[in-house]
């Protein structure tokens, strides 16, 4: 047996994920999210207008219902998008990476670096327009547990990936 120690650690001394300071994502992502949501809202509004016009003769009151209802839904949608951005963030520790998001349903996912299968740099068309990049982290925990950190500048994204890869390789060597 090699050098081995198994000292008990009081739970108060363990590193705490609740004390992590999360790095906020790039501000450009906020613009991107809002533009994306505006486009979706326009699509929704267009659908609502057509639906209203079609049923206007049968049910005249529908015009009020759909305009007020539609406005509230779109407003909430935009607000959640806006404030939700400030809840997103990532934190890198020596041995794991955490990502948090969600305004109404908040979620912190922490992936130990030793459990990462591989990582990817993803750049969609909108990302390229904004000069942003996402890091996608795959684990063996199934697709529901894969973590994607969006809204990173290409440089930071590459740095994160490099860091992860160096840790994975070191793990494989030892």
């Amino acid at each position, binding site marked *: 047996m090699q050098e081995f120690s198994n000292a008990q650690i009081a739970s108060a001394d363990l590193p705490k994920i609740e004390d992590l300071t999360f790095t906020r994502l790039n501000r450009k992502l906020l613009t991107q999210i809002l533009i994306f949501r505006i486009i979706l809202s326009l699509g929704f509004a267009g659908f609502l207008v057509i639906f209203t016009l079609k049923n206007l003769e049968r049910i005249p009151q529908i015009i009020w219902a759909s305009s007020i209802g539609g406005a509230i839904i779109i407003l909430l949608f935009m607000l959640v998008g806006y404030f939700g951005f400030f809840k997103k963030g990532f934190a890198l520790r020596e041995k794991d990476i955490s990502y948090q998001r969600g305004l109404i349903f908040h979620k912190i996912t922490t992936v*130990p670096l030793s459990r990462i299968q591989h990582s990817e740099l993803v750049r969609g068309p909108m990302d390229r327009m904004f000069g942003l990049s996402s890091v996608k982290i795959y684990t063996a925990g199934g697709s529901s547990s894969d973590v994607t950190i969006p809204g990173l500048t290409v440089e930071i994204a590459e740095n994160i990936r490099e860091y992860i890869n160096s840790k994975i390789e070191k793990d494989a060597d030892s």
Partner: protein
Amino acid sequence: MQIADLSTPRKLAPLGLIIIFLQGLKKWGQVLIYGLIPFFQGKNEHLEFWMFGVFAAVVLAFGAVWSYLSWKNYFFHIKADKFVIKQGVLRKEESLIPLERIQTVHIKRNIVQQILGLAALQLDTAGSAKKEAEIPALKYEYATALKTHLLALKADEYVGEQTEGNQDTIAKTTSVEEEKILMKLGFLDILKVGLTENHFKSSLIILGIFFGYTTQFSEIFGYEEESVFKQVFTFLAVIIPLFVLVFFLISIAFSVWAVFMLYFDLTVSLKKSGLSVSSGLLKKEENFIPVNKIQYIKWKSNPLRKLIGFKSLAIYQAASAEVSRKKTVRVPGCKKHQQETVQNAFYPEYNTAVNQKEIKPDNFWLVRLFLFFVGIPLLLTCIAFFTGEILVASALCALAVTAVFFVYKYVQHFKAQLSTDLLVINKGFVFPEQVLLKTFKVQNVAVNQSVFQKQRKLVSIKVYTASGNLSIPYIKEKDGFELANKLLYAVESSNKEWM
């Protein structure tokens, strides 16, 4: 039996031709059935029955030639630490499986293979969703010999790679090791298991098969679907009580039949390196589960099983979500002492873990579940009551009241306990289950908190493993973060192989 030189390509057993033909027969049979459709629909008057005979003969002849060519073109051998399978008639395929990637080797025998003295050998590779390699027909003795040979080769690879591995891997490489038979399920025990199955499940399956076939037949033979269902349902309405009784009996018979098919001659043996499970009446399956591949195990029970002191064991192995169902090995009918043996062998930490603090869900979870399982039936009760359907209303009300009881009991029975090495989760009232998960097998951890939970300082924890995820809902924020931190610490400070 001696393994002949595997460096040159080898063929399947000659009798394997029959197996390949029969396997293909499913495909050819489908072609035949579709060929039948125009004859039965009678839309085309020029069709006569002898034409179908010719058609069938052509299809079968083609099938026979195709099977022969597939058999002739099937080769396997070992080349430079890789297992090579070459196959294909028109589209040639060559699969290379690095020996060290082979996780387990299964021997499978269906009834035809048993009669012909043949077996299929399945090579299981690590976690990928890609279909595992299967050699369909080898002489049984040869298959078993090849299995041991492959596992031994794999072990050699292991030794070559890491001369100074930790103790676990060294124990794994000793090819001859003592084997202890943990349990053999006798006839009476299987009967007991069959009788105490979850019969609701069986009846659902029967219903599914029944409706599946009626729709299929009506499609093929051009029946009007609706009229068939109408007839069936009027028929049912007349003799419903009798039908329920018969249906229940059929369900029980079906459960017993299914259990016999799956678990006949079930033998579980324990080795230091893993667990070997073999069973099956018509289709004999042998599984070997290396300790490393076990992600977590689950003990399950139901009221009937509790009565006779049986528990079922489900072993979850590492696999991508797509194939995880296949990778779960089930052992029904474990008795108390067998449960203890398994626990002592693979989970020696169990006793420490169950002495830890019990983490229980907050009553707010109960409120949320009530809202759904009691609130909705009550709402429907009101609607039914005001529309004058008193009978429906009282039935729904009764449902709501029973839901109160079961939901309350369900929440009360939930508890999680964590020691440094082991996470134990208990849940379920009618169908209790207990999950044992070694902490270093965890893949990642998520802490969820909705705005409603935030007000009450509660969180839900989700633990992801390589074989599905486990949740611990609505626990105190402090407990939740402590649990997550401890799990992460356990994972990050461990250098044991999780697979």
